[in-house]
């Protein structure tokens, strides 16, 4: 151990007192509770299911594709910036290329003219992917009951989380994304793959 490390563990020297030796924790073979205990790897190994591990990794690194179409996009920007800060959830990596994103946040009014562009971006995103309909317009057309507006993005692409509000506050968006994390937690992707594999080879 380098010398400075020992010095840091020492107590401050009070005048007139003899400095005591720093306390050291020793791990010796006689201290182990189990003979199979390997101190070199134990503590770095977790036993779990593959799905649980994959879901844990996925849910903590959601890369959003911001589909900002109206005022909801302003709230989305606020959510991404320092005050609300979605990097606390590992979602700060906004990608403006659908190839690098896995959450499509549809924030705003989807007009019919824009609808197929949104669909195309969704199709370009690689699996696994999720979709968040942010706000009233993206969820149901909102107040735009008219010839020009698609009445909810779920008519075109599958939506995982709907967020109410016009526009929703950043807290609501964060809540929605946390709901999405909850949803990802419960997914059984490898189990489903295994099922398909056995069905095909039966």
């Amino acid at each position: 151990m380098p010398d400075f490390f020992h010095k840091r563990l020492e107590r401050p020297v009070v005048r007139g007192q003899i400095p005591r030796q720093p306390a050291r924790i020793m791990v010796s073979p006689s201290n182990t509770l189990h003979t199979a205990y390997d101190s070199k790897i134990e503590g770095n190994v977790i036993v779990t299911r593959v799905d649980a591990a994959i879901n844990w990794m996925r849910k903590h690194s959601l890369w959003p594709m911001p589909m900002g179409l109206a005022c909801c996009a302003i709230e989305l920007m606020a959510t991404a910036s320092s005050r609300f800060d979605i990097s606390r959830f590992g979602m700060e990596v906004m990608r403006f290329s659908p190839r690098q994103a896995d959450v499509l946040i549809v924030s705003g009014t989807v007009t019919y003219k824009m609808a197929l562009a949104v669909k195309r971006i969704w199709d370009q995103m690689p699996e696994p992917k999720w979709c968040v309909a942010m706000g009233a317009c993206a969820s149901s057309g909102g107040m735009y009951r008219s010839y020009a507006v698609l009445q909810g993005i779920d008519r075109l692409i599958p939506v995982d989380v709907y967020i109410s509000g016009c526009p929703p506050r950043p807290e609501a968006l964060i809540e929605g994304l946390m709901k999405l994390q909850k949803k990802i937690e419960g997914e059984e992707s490898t189990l489903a793959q295994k099922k398909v594999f056995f069905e095909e080879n039966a």
Partner: protein
Amino acid sequence: MAAQEDVKRLCETLGKGVVGTVEFRGEHTLNVSLPTLHDALKKCREDLGYEMIIDLSSLDHFGDDPRFEVVYELATVDDSKHLRIKAKVSEDEEVPTATDLWPGADWHEREIYDMMGIRFSGHPHLKRILMWEGYPFYPLRKDFPLAGRPSEMPDVASTGVAPLEGGPFVTTAGATDTVRREPRAHVVE
């Protein structure tokens, strides 16, 4: 008022082309027939000093014989004069473009073509500005339901009918009272 004198001068020079004039609270409106419309606009631009076209819009008098009406809002840059020129257009007529006088009329005319279906002859680039090329309807016409009509154009766009749940206010032109003009729900055949 300077605009008042301009109206007088336009009436003298255009003669029978002027259908009527209206003055309301200092606002001057000149109703002209469609063949004299471009002459009137040209005079305003070149002789009377209206350098600016503030707006160009259209009306749908559904049920009347010349069905549409185009409205030009003209002004001078120093805002000393303001003049409105109107002309009635029937469904099969074309309006001469004003883009040769004011380049700013370009997008206004495209919007009128897009929303109302009035065509402008001589326009350099008359295509839809809000809806996509190939959309079969003109949405701001009175006989077009607010909920929309289904249309299908694979690879470009498709539209459906919006649920109106009893309906917002849909206006009917030419009705006698407000209740009939703006019914709570408008039944579309």
